[in-house]
């Protein structure tokens, strides 16, 4: 495995992912604020949650990119098309499995079944995060596809 190449390509892809998601939010494609969503795992304070969440998202994306790299290495294929396909699969997984598990994993997230309680007051994402805007899946797919494509094109196989 080419560690240096992973560090570089993982960082660039993650920054692109964060930028795209923030742009989608700013343009009104989605209401989902990923840094806020992640930051509230550790703090209820809105401003601090955004900061912590941003840092967590960058490290998360960076760490997650190693899975892509393992697949690149295992298949001996690393190009933008393959990366894009992996990104779409990643996006689909995040939207379906990830979002459905979120109310169980997030310490401050409420559920439709139990409603909000003192410790759990955040709106759950619902199927494919549609609660956060009906174009949310589009922005998630797009940003993950770009994430994968960048990784695929920048990573150099060992």
């Amino acid at each position, binding site marked *: 495995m080419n560690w240096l190449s992973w560090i570089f390509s993982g960082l660039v892809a993650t920054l692109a992912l964060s930028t795209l998601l923030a742009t989608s939010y700013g343009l009104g494609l989605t*209401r989902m604020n990923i840094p*806020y969503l992640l930051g*509230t795992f550790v703090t209820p304070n809105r401003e601090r949650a955004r900061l912590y969440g941003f840092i967590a998202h960058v490290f998360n994306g960076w760490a997650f990119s190693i899975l892509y790299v393992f697949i690149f290495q295992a298949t001996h294929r690393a190009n933008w098309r393959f990366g894009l396909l992996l990104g779409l699969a990643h996006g689909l997984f995040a939207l379906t499995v990830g979002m459905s598990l979120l109310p169980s994993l997030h310490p401050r997230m409420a*559920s*439709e079944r139990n409603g909000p*309680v003192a410790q759990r*007051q955040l*709106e759950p*994402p619902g199927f494919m995060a549609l*609660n956060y805007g009906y174009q949310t899946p589009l922005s998630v797919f797009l940003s993950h596809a770009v994430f994968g494509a960048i990784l695929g094109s920048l990573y150099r196989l060992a």
Partner: protein
Amino acid sequence: MVPDHEILRRMVCTSGEMEIETEFVPRANYGEKIPQIRESGKLGLRIDGGRGVYWLRSSIPMRVVEGSAFARTSLCAGQSLLFSFSYARESPTVLPPLEQIPQRIDLCVDWWRQWAGQARYDGDFRDEVLRSALTLKLLSFTPSGAIIAAPTTSLPEHIGGSLNWDYRYCWLRDASLTVRALLELGYWEEATHFLDWMLHATHLTQPELRVLYTVFGNPAPREWESKTLRGYRGSAPVRIGNAARNQLQLDVYGEVVDAAAQYAFRGGTLDRETQKALIGFGNYVVNHWQLPDQGIWEPRIKPRHHTHSRLLCWTALDRLILLCDQGKLTGAPVNEYKRHCEAIRREIADRGWNERMQTYVSELDGDQLDSSLLLLSWYGFEKAGSSRMRSTYRAIRNQLGTQDGLLYRYPAQPQEGTFAICSFWEAEYLALGGGTMEETDRLMRTLLDRRNDLGLYGEEIEAGTGHALGNFPQAFTHVGLIGAALSLSQRQRGEQQLAHRPESATA
């Protein structure tokens, strides 16, 4: 954790038993669109609208039927119903549990009590002054400091008529009187935020000023008429946006400069950027004061030479000169300001005065009266007790006054209600020395009888019935109430009313 925006309601049955019927009928785009309400289990009802999401949650289940939700229940003594309606543009939205509502309402009430407790006013009509201050605070947009004229559109000035306007914007005209009211009551933070907003909002067009802005500091939207709304008691059209946004109203320069001057005269510091903006306004006045404009009442007719607009142009230059004299403003062309200030003064004294009628008049060389002429004393142009002002006041009362003590703003066709702030200007004129303290007190009590049960005023009061007309509640009217009470109180204490015009305001 708290939602971005939330309205809480608690309904308590205090005795006996009550049948409660609840209807939730949200409509978007001024009634043109029926939004879809989705049921989200125990989270409540959600509506996706525009870029945000609305949530309605209640302590009783609600039945959703075609874009509306209903509930029916009965309450016994001691039981209560809880409702929360929230809006957010960021997800995940915060949905606090309903059980926290009583505690959160108490927190909110405590905050308002504490805010009201900061008021530095012990004069007559204290409760009414506080109610008006609270109204102003509620009409302010905290993130920017802007204060809107009223939270409604198209409540009619004449029932069944077409005098229906959108007031959900911030008029620079209200600046001077509003800042004076806030500062005198001790609300420095609100006054400072309002001034900051004003200078920030006008930044893009300086030295030119628009008449009105949104709370975000953008130009007010283009005016259009709703095709679906019938209007209050059939008073059509319902207008959205305000066409006054394109008018030339020269008085706003005086209002803005005077607001900043009052802030500075009371100890506030004008930073370099503010000074630059003020000088820009002064230079604009120097170059444009001779133009006809739409004036304070913004009629949709050809521009005219309004005495009130000239008065405020004079005020702008007068305050800038005073600020320079006191070293609070540097770099202004003072000699030029003095020359034009004197020219405007002469023009008002010569052409704004009708010798035959023995009164100041609404337009230069004209013969119509206008209640805004009572402000000649407020701005320090003429002493309230001078023979000209006394004679002008008599003429205004005779021609524009009603038997029940109210005032029309001008002779209007079609007929509209009496204009509430004009009556408070009258009270303030009396307090400034145009009348006795007893006369002021009597008029104030007459006007206070016209409030509704919550102590609120609309823009106008229907003569005879006393019904509120126009948009409601109206910031300008409440500013007028505070101003009149402040001036009366200052006179009772033997204080100077307008600190920036020591030689000319009082009788």
